[in-house]
């Protein structure tokens, strides 16, 4: 148990990089990171060569770089994937304060073209009014016997511009 507590303390201690700061409004800040996600995929066949799937994923996104909007987020994604037309999805990132970042995701989602792009649409709290983009690809996605899937993306790269501050200190 002492081992587990020590491991947890090591994992949950302060970040080695400086804490994320809120950039001045209008300034683009770059970030990169990793995303581990778990969830379900429900697939239906649209003929011999076409498949559609609904994905429901949750996981942890850990960010690096001085411009990162936060050390990390709990991420939730719902998406519709069609082997003929690609993937569209929506994502919510939630930080330790409960502040959220909203984004849209588009991509091909096939083994050959495993690249996705996200557009940040704002959020709540310190992310209100934030805009930006990010890209990622899956390092692997595995499907278990029970239909659950687990994936990991390692090369998330993006940039974000914080929203304007309203009188009273709330960003929009």
């Amino acid at each position, binding site marked *: 148990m002492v081992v*587990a507590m020590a*491991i947890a303390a090591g994992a949950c201690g302060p970040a080695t990089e400086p804490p994320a700061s809120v950039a001045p409004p209008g300034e683009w800040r770059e970030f990169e990171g*990793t995303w581990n996600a778990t969830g379900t995929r429900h697939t239906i066949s649209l003929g011999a060569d076409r498949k559609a799937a609904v994905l429901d994923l949750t996981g942890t996104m850990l960010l690096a770089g001085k411009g990162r909007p936060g050390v990390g*987020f709990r991420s939730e994604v719902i998406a519709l994937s069609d082997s003929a037309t690609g993937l569209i999805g929506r994502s919510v990132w939630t930080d*330790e304060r409960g502040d959220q970042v909203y984004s849209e995701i588009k991509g091909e989602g096939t083994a050959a073209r495993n690249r996705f792009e996200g557009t940040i649409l704002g959020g709540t709290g310190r992310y209100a009014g934030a805009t930006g983009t990010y890209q990622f690809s899956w*390092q692997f996605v595995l499907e278990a016997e029970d239909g659950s899937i687990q994936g990991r993306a390692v090369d998330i790269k993006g940039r974000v511009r914080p929203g304007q501050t309203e009188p009273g200190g709330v960003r929009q």
Partner: protein
Amino acid sequence: MTRLRTLIKPAVPFAIALGIWFAPIPAGLTAPAWHLFAVFVAAIASVLIGAFPILTDAMIAVGVVVLTGTITPAQAFSGFANTSVLLVVIAFIVAQAVVKSGLGRRISLFMVSRFGGSSLGLAYSIALTDAAIAPAFPSNTARGGVLFPIVLSVSKGAGSNPDDPEGRRLGGYLMFCTMASLALSSALWLTATSANPIGVQIAQKLGVEIGFGNWLLAASVPALVAIGILPLLVAKLFPPRVGATPEAPRAARAELARAGPLSRDEWITAVVFAVMVAGWVLADRLKLNVTSVAFMGFGVLLVTGVLTIEDIAEQGDTLATFLWLAVLFALSGQLNELGFMSYAGERLATRLGGLSWPAMYVTLVSLYVGIHYMFVSQSSQVLALLGVFLDVGIRSGVPAPLMAYSLLFASSYFSAITPQGGSQNIIFAASGYLTQRELYQLGFFTTLAFLAVFLVIGTPWVLFVTR
């Protein structure tokens, strides 16, 4: 002093839970993940220090996390429908048929007649039998279901009963040896547990190709050395207090000769078990669910009257096991789903930057084993953390095959670390021969020994065979 300790002990888990719960939430985690971690750690700590029985801890934990809105009731109770949890429960009940029918006594006499010269001989015979049958069983829980009735029968046949403070030691010794042996046999063969093929897929995505043959070659030396020292190590840690019994094999042979032909119930139990084992071995090929195979066998034993409703009613411990296992299984799973596990793994792994590759390798493997305290399933840790640790190791310069094999082997042998570290453990842990505290202590020291064997002997061997 003792009275003071008695008063303080029950307060410790609550202090741990409240201390973590109200500590600042680490950046990057959400409140539900942090609060669930607080409750889970407190529950495990309570078992370890002997504050409350594991059933009490599990019931309080699930009540707290649901009533505080940390997780939903559906998430908290999902373990009650989990196939691995159900397989443990059914395998445990079905094992009683082996004892009740008299088949268990016959098996016990046979085992003692062959290997009963000493408790070490019995332990080695069980460990080697497990290692030999393991490649045919894709589920190590099912394999535990096969071995448990044998170990139970041998223990009872030798007069070792869970409620006898001194007499339970032989049974406890054999139970733990078998439980830890399942962890090692799963590391020896790629096909010995369902977590291994998942791990191989992850390794493949990161550029390491592993097949049945090269897995066996890489695992053979460290796994066989670990199997070789296991009965000796457990005998040191938990002496069975049964010395050499050279007269026992002859007495058992004579008793076996007097036992006569198989009775009706013995025949039925033997056939049902044989069909169940065949179903478990061929489950993948025939697309059978291993839990359903166990349910079918249980049903046949009830229909034929080998087991009766009264027999089930006497299995109160099984209900207690079902309750705590299902709850801990669900809570550990939710820690993963809420992102705590991957967060902790990723943060730990990335904090090690700057180490030389040998230091990074040893640290990553050791952390990967230690973090299994938080998991109630091998597969869930493989899915959540194997890719993270493998990726960080490879990026830090550790030879990719070495990192992959070491983490894959660890994904099996770490299951002995806690009684809930693998669902196959529960059948043995629930037998009542060992206290929860003893199980944790034995789990810690044997897993430490396995880690040392796989690092010290396994590392040069894997480097040699993958050069």
